């Protein structure tokens, strides 16, 4: 794709929602001897190459994130 824009989307669980992955990691870290871990939240990072950034918001809402349980932010990185 010519003149592609690189977009980075960060998706993470909404505040207050149970994050079983984060909880599991939070429990596992002290078990391995890492102390002093307060909170762990696990989301995901998505990198896209797109012709234009116009549709990124829609992509986030309809597929990349689940707006009922997750929040997202995105930026054009290059």
């Amino acid at each position, binding site marked *: 794709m010519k003149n592609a824009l690189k977009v980075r989307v960060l998706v993470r669980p909404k505040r207050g*929602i*149970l994050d079983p992955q984060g909880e599991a990691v939070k429990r596992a870290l002290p078990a391995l001897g890492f102390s002093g871990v307060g909170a762990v939240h696990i989301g995901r990072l998505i990198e896209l190459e797109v012709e234009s950034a116009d549709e990124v918001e829609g992509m986030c809402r309809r597929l990349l994130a689940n707006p009922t349980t997750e929040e997202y932010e995105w930026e054009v990185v290059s």
Partner: protein
Amino acid sequence: MNIQETYTSLGLSDFEYDRILELMGRPPNYLELSLFSVMWSEHCGYKNSRPLLRRFPNTGPRVLQGPGENAGVIEVGEGWALAFKMESHNHPSAVEPYEGAATGVGGIIRDVIAMGARPVALLNALRFGPLDDERNRYLFREVVRGIGGYGNAIGVPTVGGEVEFSPAYSGNPLVNAMCVGLIRADEVVRAKAEAGEGNLVVLFGAKTGRDGIHGATFASDELTEESEAKRSNVQVGDPFAGKMLIECSLRLLERNLLVALQDLGAAGIASSASEMAARGGVGIELDAEKVPLREEGMEAWEVVISESQERMLAVVEPEKADEVLKVCERYELDAAVVGRVTSHGELRVFDNGEPIGSVPAEALADAPVYEREVRRPAYLDGAHRFDPDALPEPDDYNEVLLRMLAHPNLCSRASVYEQYDSEVGSDTVVRPGADAAVLRIKGTKLGFAVTADVSGRHCYLDPRGGGAAAVAEAYRNLSCVGAEPVALTDCLNFGSPEKPDGYYGLSECVDGMAEACEVLGTPVVSGNVSLFNETERGAIYPTPAVGMVGVFEDVSRHATPGFKREGDMVVHLGDYRPTLAGSDYLEIVHGKVAGKPEQPRLPREKEYADLVKSLVAEGIVDTAHDVSGGGLAVALAEMSITGGIGMTFDRVEVEPMLSGRRGDQALFGECGGHFVVAVPEERWDALQEALGGVPYDQIGRTGGDRLDVPGLLDVAVDDLRAAHERDLFEQHAPEGGHLG
């Protein structure tokens, strides 16, 4: 928000608020009001359905526990018992289908654990709008994923269920989950806080967060609209924590460390505690600050009504509390003593010693009861006007049969149940796809069978007949696999009870079910009611899902629908009085939902089904199938497809089958109370002897690779299979974000 807006937003009426004032003798605060809101909801208080539910029989020789506890319990034999219940999670699944379905499964599992039983089987009854709509496809796919995601991970097999599609459920899907647990009959735990004053209340399981707190906006003025959008009230299931909860609860019970056990559902700790207190006739005091929290800054009232998943509440003798906490730690669960049992009969909540709420437990348990107005809906007369002779008669029944087998309501459910682990636990004897699932009880010859059934369309066209037919179909399905049907749980999914013609459906369905339960001898031992299932398009079909459980003395003696051998004699058994009224054929081929279906003849249903059961139990028959949706042609096709063997209808039997009927009525007409069985020739004499006075016909023989009904049908089994094995997920369902 003024007080009226507040209680209205919590779903309480003016009348109910006045009643609360009367019971309390003072205005309730928000926490107290929240408690009444939940405990007086239909889900907990059955305020619209209680008078109807009393019509159900709920005792029987095998019933150890009827309605009123977390789950019903029946006796199997040799000291074994089964605890089971079905519950709806319709609304949460409409909002967030994956988590809604997952937490529905988790919730029903905890009900069974609360009886002290080990969960051993899951089923579900699902309804969606038609799959040509993107939103419906999305809901269907995500609900199925959610059931599998939770059930597969927690290690309880999903062994059966049912799914149907109709425009009546567009925008209002039904997700009913059922769980069966195994327990020693003398170890059934009751969720009563019976051991009185001085005992401690222990909360264990996952930490408490702000999940499912509807009132968040009300009390948190500092929350802006923007921050509210960033917060989710959706409850998320955690099957791994759920698994720990099963093992931990069972270990605590096995070591005799608990006095009582209760799962946490709607309105969290406060409602569970008040239920325990009301059942035990005692009081409970809770200390909100002692509850292990997942997030900071939670208000005390939020803590006690939060609906965070994977938690249980137990009553423990003080000297055993340390041991209980130690066992919880072993299972990596949070646990804390959060309160005590008292004699004052109230539920009192404290925050660092400060009282923040106090309600008589009895008052919470005493929801007002409404006798609603009943009016026969106007649509029924129009819907019953139906003239089968006005239907154009198809000229190619092969094509019609293939089309019916490929329809989403009749095709193979393999694309759904193949996403579920149906064998974990290694006790599944008959997997999904038969008339009922069959499981063994390890170390014995005993076993049990489970099925979930209802036809919403039938209940729409004839609520009383449809309610009875749902119970009768479940009874037939269990009988076909060879189990003795014992008792049932139900999930009554209906529209608004405040509309007299909507309430008619509920009342009539319950009457029909109650009558069938009486005649068939299968009491209702647990259940759940879900009302107000309406969208702007109107109410859903009346849908009283029935989950029935039956038992085997010798589980090795069971039957499945598939033909087993070439040359078997195929026998039709029972009354043959097919009608196209309200049939699948009418809806699929002619696009009509009309006519009044045949009334179930309950005493005969019982006679025939009991006979089929005994034929299987005596080892005469190993191939049996209930004739239901799609009529005789679809039943025979299913037996051919699953067995991989064709069948030829005896030429001389075609004429009596038609006897004045059109071909479509004979092939695809529906009625209850009939079966197809197959036996090898050497057991024909034994079969005839066992049949006694029951009407039967030998209609043909198995063999070859075609289903051949001379003059009407002649299709290759491979073609039948190709049509039937439709992938219900074949169309992409892109809506919603689910990369996670």
